[in-house]
């Protein structure tokens, strides 16, 4: 059974803390993505990566960075957490086939609260 796992389901951090959200996939997918989901705003892409050590900014990269040292792992980093980063964070992965993006497999999400 294919899987995308995220390190925590729920996380509470304080303003100014450095926060690491980890995502691991076991499908040997080239592409990995980080989204945040907020009520009324849908899913917004933060960063994505189409290969090891490669990263591309999404729609809302400010305040975030990412790391992809291994193909199966994609980390989202909040350098200095702020209250407006309280959100549900979703990781996803997909194959890159024929130059087109195919179905994405999502992790269960991490609900982050920044106090």
């Amino acid at each position, binding site marked *: 059974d294919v899987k995308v796992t995220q390190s925590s389901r729920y996380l509470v951090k304080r303003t100014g803390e450095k926060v690491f959200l980890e995502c691991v996939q076991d499908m040997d997918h080239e592409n990995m993505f980080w989204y945040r989901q907020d009520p009324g705003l849908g899913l917004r892409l933060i960063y994505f990566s189409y290969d090891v050590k490669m990263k591309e900014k999404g729609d809302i990269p400010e305040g975030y960075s990412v790391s992809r040292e291994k193909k199966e792992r994609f980390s989202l980093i909040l350098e200095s957490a702020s209250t407006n980063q309280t959100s549900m964070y979703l990781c996803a992965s997909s194959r890159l086939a024929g130059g087109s993006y195919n*179905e994405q497999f999502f992790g269960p999400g991490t609900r982050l609260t920044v106090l």
Partner: protein
Amino acid sequence: SQQGEEDPQALSIQEGENATMNCSYKTSINNLQWYRQNSGRGLVHLILIRSNEREKHSGRLRVTLDTSKKSSSLLITASRAADTASYFCATVLRNSGNTPLVFGKGTRLSVIA
């Protein structure tokens, strides 16, 4: 940047009825996908329809695509309480290079037993 917009934002039906959700998008697409999200969980892929296809079926799901109107619809027949979820359309832009899926804001479906 939102490409797809689902309509309606929320839908409430009785068990056994059919549910129809619509998605409109702005620019040419390579394919369009529908996803389901149960409350507080990750999204699950339901079905993919390519730009040269007009209709696709998967179990109780039927998806149509009208590229001339830049719209798609998702029909769930004989709905069940377990179909209660949010449904999102996502588009892959034509000639978008490395640009990934763009998701709409979703339709929240409630199926009442």
